[in-house]
């Protein structure tokens, strides 16, 4: 042995490829295939972290995802990622790893002083200690507590790595690639099933790689390679390592994350992590098991490890976890681990077994490896600070299940413990019945399946390899039969080696714990510093339900998810309550099984990919011509076209003035457009609008108000009758999809008898509004086939014409209050249409105008828009109550008749004119009284802007009983922005109340 790296062995490492990384700035060397944990151990280092609350020194405990101590932070800057188990982190060149939760250094951690305060840091101490003196005291304490306790910290910069999503469909998902899972996956693939195999560790093979079992005459590693090659030769099968299935949801949908690479983003485009949504017809859960720690004083001293982990580090990575190693366990499976570790070169000097002489079948083999067998004894305590120096061994009383209170000292630098085995039933529990306690195995097993899954192997409590493989074959046949395939004729592979896998262990949770002696640093949940005394305390204070125990003590929360702590915690609580473990019960496991990064959940839905962007046909023109673009739903629209030196206010008032004086053009392509066709189209439209539409003739449009079924206003717009059975309905931009959805719903569910079909043509037509007194003259010069005279194209008329050979619809409508036309062209000609109108409009000094000017023009006219149609408005509130039909039925009519929607003191639409020079604010409240002493809110401003025609700041808003308060001066208060002013309440129509400008 050279240092802690064994001279030979290590099926996962390539000794020809050295790797250099750093740990807390110091170089750490290893080989390709090492994990950070194995390299750390190979370097002879025990200390790797500090505990969550007490800042106790901690060392590597396991070799897998259950690691509770060796949580590290990887990288810095944008890619910095905390709380990664060093046991799962492959060692890579230039990798920079940091320990966590220590200051100023891992060796000397100032906050290890917390250990002196340990008696006060018991379960629930937050709740007990930080209650006062005032209700706000917690705000003070929280900052300090968060500084003092916790885990790693993420980077402050935005993560620059890619995270992607992927959707996987398969006949069978196999979770776990131990011998049972791998056999199941291979046989299922050969049976013609589409198989996805997910293995959370870096390597496939599970426990097989670390054991000395041969299978089909091959070493475990060779058999695994062979099975994988066979599986992967089937192009319909997917074998994913480093992929954790963390959640099991309805309809056999599972969620998994593949850690494609670790560390900073490279120059390529691989995702750092790939999130899979897996829809599997069947699932085979071959999730294996976790070895339990033993509970005794100082069981967290660096050097105390799980027995299987000590074996794994030797056989997988060629690392001895110590130079003076003692094993401690109460099962033959633990003895097998000791033998396999010794075979690999680990200097194991003794095996301490609480069982009596003769209870073990394997113990006799220990002497072949010069391992002293010490039956009838147990570990009472460990000694050491930053690394283990020895243990105290005491006699075990099989009748009481307790160790004697004193014993003798054994020197060692590594204690490999095995307190039994806990099947990983997390996924089964998420979609299964209550876990079932197995007395023989002293653990909970999966309950009944709520979904189409089968548990096999150690995860099902079947630890004997032969039986586990038989279960795998049976599971495949069940799945194959369910999909109509013939059963597999594959036979169980031949096995040899240490097949003694009996995991039944003498309980090591309570053996050394004496509740009467109080706190002795006997930890149950290493991750949260929950010790045996905390469990006893929870019982004493009445938190006896396992769910309450979990929340009160934090046992099994966060990263741990009960992997190593659950059964020991239950055993302690059961002992405290004087009942059995099944009587005590267990918690239900919930997703995620292991932590999932936010990046993996977000996938590519970040930054510019956060939401889709929708562009009109003229979008690029707007951008190129000074358009100040703003999102409007998914669309981007120009607020105004800024000329050099212009402010937004300057620009929109200029644009609005041009419309009133001559002509302007605005892109209205974003308005929803729904093509409605069929013999019953008129009937449909008449039913969905509150006002009548049956009298609309072809070539005419009508403004309509649409209610929701609850009687409130939903949307408005014009609908054009193109021919007898063909309409074009326009909606607001915001409700385009919603209105279409409602129409489709009603046609499919309420009125299937109507012969009508609807189709969104929002994107088919580019639309512009040409508004102003010169609009008709302008359009008549470039549109063919339409007479723009008052007689031939009256207000609300719709005509079809052409421009430069392409078809256009022209509708004489007005949102601005001026004579105006909406012109729609096929979208691919939208830019051509726009260009033609701009060119022809030069003689009239045409201006393009944006949302701000459009809003100002419609505010001056008192037209409502999205800001006013806020979902709480009755048709009478906006002054359109008389439009609602009395005789016909329409959607929302019944509920619109509710008395409450007609009360006088409802919020009613009013106009507002600022009495001073200060602008009004959207959202400002309308109150009586002064700004200093305001009364309650009686309404608010919905839209505002500077009006050229009123030469004042004006707005629309809702005011209680507003129609009867015209002329009243009211206080406008905007405490959020710190603005307070006054405004006169007026009629909402500020401009041309008689509508004469429509005919100018």
């Amino acid at each position: 042995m050279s240092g802690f790296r064994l001279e030979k062995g290590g099926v996962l490492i390539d000794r020809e490829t050295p790797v250099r990384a750093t740990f807390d700035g110091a170089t750490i060397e290893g080989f390709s295939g090492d994990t950070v944990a194995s390299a750390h151990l190979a370097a002879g280092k025990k200390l790797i972290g500090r505990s969550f609350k007490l800042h106790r020194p901690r060392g590597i405990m396991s070799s897998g995802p259950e690691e509770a101590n060796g949580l590290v932070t990887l990288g810095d800057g944008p890619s910095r990622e905390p709380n990664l188990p060093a046991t799962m982190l492959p060692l890579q060149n230039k990798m920079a790893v940091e320990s966590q939760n220590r200051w100023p250094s891992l060796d000397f951690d100032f906050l290890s002083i917390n250990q002196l305060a340990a008696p006060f840091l018991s379960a629930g101490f937050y709740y007990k200690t930080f209650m006062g003196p005032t209700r706000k005291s917690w705000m003070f304490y929280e900052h300090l507590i968060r500084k003092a306790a916790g885990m790693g910290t993420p980077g402050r910069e935005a993560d620059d790595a890619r995270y992607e999503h992927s959707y996987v469909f398969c006949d069978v998902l196999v979770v776990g690639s131990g011998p049972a899972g791998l056999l199941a996956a291979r046989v299922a693939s050969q049976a013609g099933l589409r198989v996805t195999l997910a293995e959370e560790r870096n390597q496939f093979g599970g426990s097989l790689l670390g054991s000395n079992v041969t299978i089909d005459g091959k070493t475990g590693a060779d058999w695994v390679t062979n099975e994988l090659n066979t599986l992967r030769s089937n192009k319909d099968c997917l074998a994913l390592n480093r992929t954790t299935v963390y959640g099991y949801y309805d309809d056999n949908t599972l969620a998994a994350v593949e850690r494609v690479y670790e560390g900073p983003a490279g120059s390529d485009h691989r995702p750092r992590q790939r999130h899979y949504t897996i829809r599997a017809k069947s699932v085979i859960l071959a999730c294996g098991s976790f070895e339990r720690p033993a509970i005794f004083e100082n069981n967290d001293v660096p050097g105390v490890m799980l027995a299987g982990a000590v074996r794994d580090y030797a056989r997988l990575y060629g690392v001895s976890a110590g130079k003076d190693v003692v094993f401690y366990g109460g099962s033959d499976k633990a003895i097998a681990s000791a033998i396999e570790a010794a075979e690999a070169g680990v200097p194991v000097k003794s095996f301490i077994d609480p069982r009596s002489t003769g209870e073990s079948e394997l113990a006799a083999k220990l002497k072949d490896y010069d391992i002293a067998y010490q039956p009838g004894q147990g570990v009472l305590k460990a000694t050491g600070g930053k690394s283990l120096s020895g243990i105290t061994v005491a006699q075990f009383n099989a009748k009481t299940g307790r160790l004697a209170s004193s014993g003798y000292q054994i020197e060692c630098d590594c204690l490999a413990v095995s307190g039994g085995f806990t099947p990983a039933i997390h996924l089964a529990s998420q979609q299964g019945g209550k876990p079932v306690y197995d007395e023989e195995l002293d653990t909970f097993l999966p309950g009944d399946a709520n979904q189409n899954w089968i548990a096999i192997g150690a995860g099902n409590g079947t630890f004997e390899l032969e039986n586990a493989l038989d279960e795998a074959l049976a599971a495949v046949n069940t799945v194959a039969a369910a999909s109509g395939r013939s059963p597999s004729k594959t036979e169980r592979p031949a096995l040899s080696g240490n097949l003694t896998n009996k995991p039944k262990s003498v309980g090591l949770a309570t053996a050394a714990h004496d509740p009467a002696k109080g706190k002795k640093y006997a930890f149950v949940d290493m991750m949260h510093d929950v010790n045996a005394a905390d469990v006893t305390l929870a019982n004493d204070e009445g938190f006896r339900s396992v769910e309450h125990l979990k929340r009160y003590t934090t046992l099994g929360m966060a990263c741990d998810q009960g992997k190593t702590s659950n059964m020991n915690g239950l055993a302690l609580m059961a002992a405290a309550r004087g009942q059995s473990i099944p009587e005590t019960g267990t918690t239900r496991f919930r997703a995620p099984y292991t932590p999932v990064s936010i990046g993996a959940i977000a996938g590519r839905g970040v930054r510019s990919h956060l939401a889709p962007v929708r562009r009109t046909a003229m979008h690029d023109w707007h951008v190129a011509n000074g358009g100040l673009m703003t999102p409007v739903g998914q669309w981007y629209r120009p607020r105004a076209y800024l000329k050099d030196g212009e402010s937004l206010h300057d620009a929109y008032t200029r644009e609005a003035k041009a419309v009133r004086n001559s002509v302007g053009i605005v892109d209205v392509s974003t308005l929803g457009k729904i093509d409605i066709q069929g013999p019953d189209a008129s009937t449909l439209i008449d039913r969905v609008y509150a006002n009548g539409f049956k009298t609309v003739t072809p070539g005419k449009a009508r403004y309509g108000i649409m209610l929701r079924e609850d009687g409130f206003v939903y949307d408005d717009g014009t609908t054009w009758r193109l021919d007898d059975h063909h309409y074009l309905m326009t909606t607001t931009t915001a409700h385009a999809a919603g209105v279409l959805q409602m129409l489709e719903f009603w046609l499919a569910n309420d009125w299937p008898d109507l012969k009508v079909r609807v189709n969104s043509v929002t994107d088919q037509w580019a639309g512009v509004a040409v508004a102003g007194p010169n609009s008709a003259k302008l359009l008549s010069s470039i549109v063919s086939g339409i007479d723009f005279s008052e007689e031939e194209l009256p207000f609300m008329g719709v005509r079809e014409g052409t421009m430069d050979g392409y078809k256009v619809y022209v509708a004489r409508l007005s949102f601005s209050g001026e004579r105006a036309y909406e012109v729609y062209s096929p979208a691919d000609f939208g830019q051509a249409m726009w260009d033609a109108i701009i060119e022809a409009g030069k003689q009239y000094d045409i201006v393009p105008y944006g949302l701000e000017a459009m809003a100002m023009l419609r505010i001056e006219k008192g037209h409502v828009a999205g800001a006013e149609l806020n979902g709480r408005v009755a048709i009478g509130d906006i002054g359109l109550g008389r439009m609602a039909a009395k005789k016909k039925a329409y959607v929302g009519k019944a509920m619109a008749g509710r008395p409450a929607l007609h009360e006088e003191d409802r919020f009613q639409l009013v106009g507002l004119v600022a009495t001073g020079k200060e602008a009004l604010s959207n959202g400002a409240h309308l109150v009586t009284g002064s700004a200093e002493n305001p009364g309650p809110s009686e309404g608010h401003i919905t839209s505002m802007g500077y009006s050229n025609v009123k030469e004042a700041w004006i707005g629309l808003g809702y005011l209680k009983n507003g129609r009867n308060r015209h002329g009243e001066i009211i206080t406008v208060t905007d405490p959020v922005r710190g603005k307070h002013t006054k405004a006169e309440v007026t009629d909402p129509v500020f401009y041309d109340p008689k509508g004469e400008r429509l005919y100018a």
Partner: protein
Amino acid sequence: MPDRLSPLQNKMKQGVYGDVAAHLTAPVALSERPHGTLAFVEGWPETVMDLQTIVASVIGVSPSKQNGWLSAGAKGTAYNLGLGRFLIRSDNDGEFASLRSAIDASTGCVFDQTHGRWCMRMEGPAARFALSKLVELDLHDDNFGEGRVTETRIHHVPVILAHPAKDTYDLFVYRGFAEDFFETICDACLETGYSIA
């Protein structure tokens, strides 16, 4: 008459992008697939057969009687989207008018989507892998083999997805989303590389 202006006009830059060298498969070939006519044809329950006959007379092939299947003819392709609803695509720009004149209200409806939807094509052995990042559907040949069509969603946007030939997918998306959609597809293809001819 001016030329039609594609929403991706001057925005699809010829070249090869992404991690092509890292993969053995050819990059995904991305291209715009312009159409002369794109229209939804929808009938009433009792007229679907008549519609199929009319469509066949216009584009030379009758829509498949099976939902979710496409049928390609000499003058166009018909996509059966279910419930008597067909998407008709043709390179010719006159087919909408032909359909319109052949189908009256008693037989069904014809909705022009020639400008309303933009179509792109993804080709190559890695196309399915790239799509699997975006489409929540089983794209395996057993489920969505050649000749299949479906309506789905990519990046929150409704998409008609067709599989007209081996390793070839056509995607129809609302025109307004086209540029953003194309960027999304390109992004999904970066890992395996993509090319624009």
